[in-house]
């Protein structure tokens, strides 16, 4: 076995960081979609990712549905869960404050996690990689084809969302809600429906993240919490509400983890990302892209 060069190692860290970071970025984008419309931080966001992975395993592996069919079926099912979350846990709250909403979504995430444990048990599940497991070697670093799928889907989500928000009427209506809910309802936009839609959309994106990451890292019932924390961190790092910020934040956190684990100490991997996050919060609380005054107007 020949030694790999430092440059190749660094490249490998970067590739890993970007892959993991893409998943965080998708979670963070999900956070932002809901946050922009409702100012709620949905702590159950990570559970969508977990459900995406496990439901995909159910459709694709257990039921034998082809990838092309299982993928949309999974996304639709998780989207429904997202809508249920809004209807059953968020909308009934009579005195919404930041604290009660945080508690409600934490409660929802505990329930979803418990239900997943009930259905799937505690074992991890595997999903075949979309296009095989033959690694591609690039300048001494190794790239799994699945890595490209993960990054590719992030790009796809970004493009699809920017078209949605900029070009479609519903997307524009959602942006309007985000900017000023009262004004939006005056011009005839159904704000409640837009909130429902935001939950659906971010659940769908969570599902995509879960489906694409499962072939790399398996999936089990209690993955959601850590993913939610990292995704939330990414969203805050980039500036809550800012989509470019969310993506950048995700990729940064993924890279810090990867480089931190590789170059400094793998035991403190998670701590590095969180330390950087705390530093940003303390010195520039609005995040990299965020601006407290105008954070809500940020769009793609």
């Amino acid at each position: 076995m020949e030694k790999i060069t430092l440059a190749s190692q660094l490249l490998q860290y970067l590739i890993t960081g970007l892959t993991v970071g893409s998943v965080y970025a998708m979670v963070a984008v999900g956070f932002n979609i809901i946050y922009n419309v409702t100012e709620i931080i949905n702590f159950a966001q990570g559970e969508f990712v977990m459900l995406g992975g496990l439901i995909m395993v159910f459709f694709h592996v257990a039921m034998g549905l082809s990838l092309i069919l299982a993928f949309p079926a999974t996304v639709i099912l998780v989207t429904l869960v997202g809508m249920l979350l809004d209807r059953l846990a968020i909308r009934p709250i009579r005195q919404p404050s930041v604290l009660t909403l945080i508690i409600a979504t934490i409660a929802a995430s505990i329930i979803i996690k418990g239900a997943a444990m009930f259905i799937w048990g505690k074992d991890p599940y595997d999903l075949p990689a979309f296009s095989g497991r033959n690694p591609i070697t690039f300048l001494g670093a190794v790239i799994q084809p699945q890595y490209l799928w993960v990054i590719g889907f992030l790009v796809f989500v970004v493009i699809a969302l920017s078209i949605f928000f900029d070009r479609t009427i519903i997307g524009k209506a959602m942006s309007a809600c985000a900017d000023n809910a009262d004004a939006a309802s005056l011009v005839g936009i159904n704000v409640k429906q837009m909130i429902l839609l935001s939950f659906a959309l971010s659940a769908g994106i969570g599902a995509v993240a879960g489906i694409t990451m499962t072939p790399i890292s398996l999936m089990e019932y209690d993955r959601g919490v850590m993913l939610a924390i990292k995704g939330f961190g990414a969203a805050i790092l980039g500036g809550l509400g800012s989509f470019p910020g969310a993506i950048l934040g995700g990729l940064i956190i993924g890279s810090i983890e990867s480089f931190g684990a590789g170059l400094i100490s793998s035991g403190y991997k998670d701590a590095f990302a969180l330390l950087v996050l705390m530093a940003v919060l303390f010195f520039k609380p609005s995040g990299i892209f965020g601006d407290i005054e105008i954070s809500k107007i940020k769009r793609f």
Partner: protein
Amino acid sequence: MTLRRISIIATICLFVVGLLINPAQAFKGTYKVGAVFSVTGRTSFLGDPEKKTAEMLAEQINNAGGINGHKLELIIYDSEGDATKCNLAVKKLITKDKVCAVIGPSLSGTSMAVLPVAEKNKTPLISCAASYKIVHNEKTGKPYKWVFKTPQTDTMAVEAIYSHLFKRGLNKIAIISVTSGFGASGRGELIRLAPTYGMIIVADEKYGPKDTDMTAQLTKIKGKAPAAIVNWSVGPTQVTVLRNWRDLGMSSIPFYQSHGFGSRKNIELAAGAAEGILCPLGSCNIAGLLSASHPQKDVTMKYSKDYKARYNEPLSSFGGHAWDALQMVVQALSNVGDDKAKIRDYLENNIKGFVGQHGVFNYSLNDHNGLTKDAFNMVIVKDGDWALAD
């Protein structure tokens, strides 16, 4: 999952029916033995088979007329892997249920949390957890008076692996471990024993018990070009490590897993990546592979057959630890009755050449574990199944 539920309900029904049909079995009185396992929670893969094994044994013993005519009453509590809960449960067993001995807990951490309870209440406790610290009082250098344990220590697993590496002439190794009690304890022993076997540790990496990707750590290891990698973890992370190892094209570096790898489920989940993996396993994992002259051949074969018949699932090596612990208590009970102090003395002085699932035990004043590294067999994954490694 549901299968497990159904089987539990079915066995309970059978048990009830059995009691109704045969109520006349006369017992002289009951011997109460307590047990605490992490039956649920993150570490249920340890406690669940332990509980099943203990229940099966108790039933077999009572069906065969009990212990010298005394019924064996087994009281099992679930610690959920939580130190506080475990502490409460053991106190409840001793003070409320008045058991004469306790078997379990399943984890090193929870065992450490109940040591003082057993010592203070002068109740024998046979732990089913790995760490040598459970039976080694750092202040006195001797075992705690009332505490024993059945599983092989990490030390033995490390010795088995290092001996194997030494035999193959590999000495430049990379270690990677999970930051849980199991991983940290194994890592400690790997580092401590390395000089004894002439091992040079070129990389010492870690990952969290919920991590989803260890590519960065493995890349760093790759950069150090070790002759072999030793991974120390339990649960899903040991599979993820394997998959990353293969994905990074590092298959040419021999890969050793700890004894935590002893479940066939892991081989399945690795999706082919486990081929050629080496690990040390207790005899009960590989009963079928043992030669007919092996001292443990009979006990392990019987246990494995009974377990499969009763629960319709493959044997997990962890259940064997509970088997060893309970059988020792039963042997003590049948010889000295249910006096706590007598049981303790019996365990320390009279468990000699006890043939268990994980080895042949010899307890003594200075050894409350009673095993040597021979309790492990080096095993290799071949064609998706275990095979003895040479």
